[in-house]
């Protein structure tokens, strides 16, 4: 009986053992979780899915599990997950205060960068981008995915012509153009001033036009906000509301999706304020945007003006759009970095050259945007030119409380609740209380 059972078992074991001999068992895949708000999931055609597919083909041992969370709740969710020990292996974060706040959950990437790209890895990235992802000691805590420039204005050239207006080049011209547009029942320069980040972008460009050193020194705590150039910038900001350069009640309109939709989809307003990232209007696939931006004869200009009428146009500010960070508690760090480096290299090529989501953060990257109209190419050239020669410094204020104080002051100025001098005084008071 026993022998019979043994025979049956031996026969049953044969296929299993033979299977073991025929080929090696399939390698278990490593899963890298990746949470971000950008690159976004805008449907099955989103570039991020193409990048993930390509990466998984080239790295068959890794699966990327992409979790998209909208910008309004990405950081909140991320914070809870990381603190609860359930954070993603790789995540995207915005530069400035957020990047600094999450420091305890950002792996030091310096050794990974050295291993992957060699000791001179810093040369691969633009200096302006690197300063956004390192600390005072030069330790790298994130990889820059795309560069953005803020402070730009956009105009629909054809619509401006219809109203008998040229693209303004300075404050005085902007004032005249705004008046002309208003007289004909049209919006002047549209601003989504309910978004404090946009107000900050605009003000930084104005303040940098007045005196960029005065602005950055004040932010760094090396100088006071109560200086002539800063007060002048607050005055220009307030005058732009009082004199009708911005539309009525700009303070109650958001950029996304109120003002932006009016310019991008409806094509119903002649000018609005938005950054270089709005270049993706040329590559978006929705029919309304396509019609506005890529139909025959469509002509739009991205431009800067001389806010303080001193003969030179305002500079832009620059920042990394998305910083890719690695969770120090990740159990698959090697695979995680492979994904991060791929996204910054091949991924960024696609995001920039096919979709114009950002400007490059890599110094070796060539811009060769496919299918861009002549109009789009001209605007891209303008951004590149200014990116090379007209950047004032870092976009945004890295100290959250100071940033909020400036935003509050800008809002109060817009409403006429305080004078530029009082605004400077209030911001300076906050500036003195923060530890840098």
């Amino acid at each position: 009986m026993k022998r019979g059972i043994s025979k049956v078992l031996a026969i049953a074991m044969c296929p299993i053992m033979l299977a073991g001999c025929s080929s090696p068992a399939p390698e278990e895949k490593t899963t890298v979780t990746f949470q971000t708000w950008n690159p976004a999931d805008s449907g099955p055609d989103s570039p991020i899915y193409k990048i993930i597919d390509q990466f998984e083909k080239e790295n068959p041992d890794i699966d990327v599990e992409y979790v998209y969370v909208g910008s309004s709740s990405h950081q909140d969710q991320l914070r809870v997950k990381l603190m609860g020990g359930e954070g993603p292996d790789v995540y995207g974060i915005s530069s400035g205060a957020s990047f600094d706040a999450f420091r305890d959950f950002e792996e030091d990437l310096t050794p990974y960068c050295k291993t992957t790209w060699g000791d001179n890895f810093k040369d691969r990235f633009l200096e302006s981008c690197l300063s956004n992802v390192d600390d005072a000691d030069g330790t790298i805590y994130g990889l820059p995915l795309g560069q953005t420039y803020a402070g730009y204005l956009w105009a629909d050239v054809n619509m401006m012509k219809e109203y008998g207006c040229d693209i303004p080049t300075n404050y005085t011209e902007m004032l005249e153009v705004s008046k002309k547009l208003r007289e004909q029942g049209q919006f002047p320069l549209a601003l989504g001033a309910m978004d404090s980040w946009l107000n900050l972008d605009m003000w930084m460009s104005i303040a940098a036009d007045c005196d960029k050193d005065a602005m950055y020194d004040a932010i760094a705590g090396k100088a006071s906000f109560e200086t002539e150039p800063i007060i002048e910038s607050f005055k220009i900001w307030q005058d732009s509301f009082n004199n009708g350069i911005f539309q009525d009640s700009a303070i109650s309109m958001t950029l996304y999706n109120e003002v932006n939709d009016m310019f991008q989809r409806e094509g119903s307003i002649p000018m609005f304020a938005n950054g270089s990232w709005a270049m993706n209007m040329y590559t978006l696939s929705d029919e309304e945007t396509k019609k506005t931006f890529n139909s025959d004869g469509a002509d739009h200009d991205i431009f800067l003006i001389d806010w303080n009428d001193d003969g030179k146009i305002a500079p832009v500010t620059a920042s990394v759009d998305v910083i890719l960070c690695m969770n120090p508690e990740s159990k698959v760090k090697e695979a995680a970095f492979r994904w991060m480096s791929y996204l910054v290299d091949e991924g960024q090529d696609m995001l920039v050259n096919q979709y114009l989501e950002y400007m490059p953060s890599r110094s070796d990257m060539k811009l060769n945007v496919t299918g861009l109209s002549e109009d789009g190419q001209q605007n891209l050239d303008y951004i590149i030119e200014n990116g090379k020669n007209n950047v004032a410094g870092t976009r945004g204020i890295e100290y959250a409380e100071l940033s909020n104080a400036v935003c509050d002051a800008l809002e109060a100025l817009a409403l006429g609740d305080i004078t530029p001098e009082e605004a400077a005084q209030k911001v300076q008071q906050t500036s003195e209380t923060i530890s840098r």
Partner: protein
Amino acid sequence: MRKKHLSNYLYIAPMLILFAAFIIYPIVYNVRISFFEWNGISREMKLIGFQNYAELVKDPIFVRILINFLVFSFSTIIIQGILGMFFASLMRGGLKLSGLYRTLIYLPIVATPTIVGSVFSKILETNKGYLNEMLRGAHLDSAALPWLATPGLALMWVIIVNIWQWTGYSMLVYYTGMLNIPTEVYEAADIDGASPLQRFFLVTFPMLRSTHYTVFIMGMIGSLKTFDIPYVLTGGGPNHATEFFSTYINTLSFESFNQGKASAVVVLMLLIAMVITAIQLRIYYKQEKE
């Protein structure tokens, strides 16, 4: 006897554990971190005693929040209560198609705040909003105001939108209360020759006393928690004119990374809620005695 007691405790143990884990612990944790300087993310927390509270007392935004809370709660409770009672009376009075009206008045409660905020933003936008376009169309240009860009008007609209959304709730509460009033009381009033107005003010209104308390207390607690409509409609602006406890907690916690101060606001909010609840319980027990 002891064993019996022990088994009694065992019966309520699951409830106690859940209560401790989901109510007591978060409250205690919140109170604790209100004494720290903490960005809400890092592992390091710095004990600073009552500094967050001291800052709040001096914070002009917090003072604005307290004023907003009082204005919002009293206007909402009174107007919403009157409207709710009015509609409930109509329904109770046998209005034709009352079922349909009840559903329509209740419908806004089902709508998500994002949709409500978005719809009202389009209605109230200054330049091309439906309300101002309508006013201009009627040659009332001077009445076409910057509704959401003027601090006082923005707060007024937050209150109006909230009332629009929640009147259905007050109506249902009052309607239920009215159903509980015995018909004999109305018959007696009729025999005494009471007019419809007298019937309402001398019979219905006083007999709805417990409903008034409920509507008041629920309104106060609801006002204390107000977040969605101001957040979507005005973002707490312009210049903090529509800032409430919850919107400020959100800003401090998630935008300013000042979790310690945000927790101090939560603690103060909790104290206010406790005072309101204490008043509610006192009234309740007083009624019980009577």
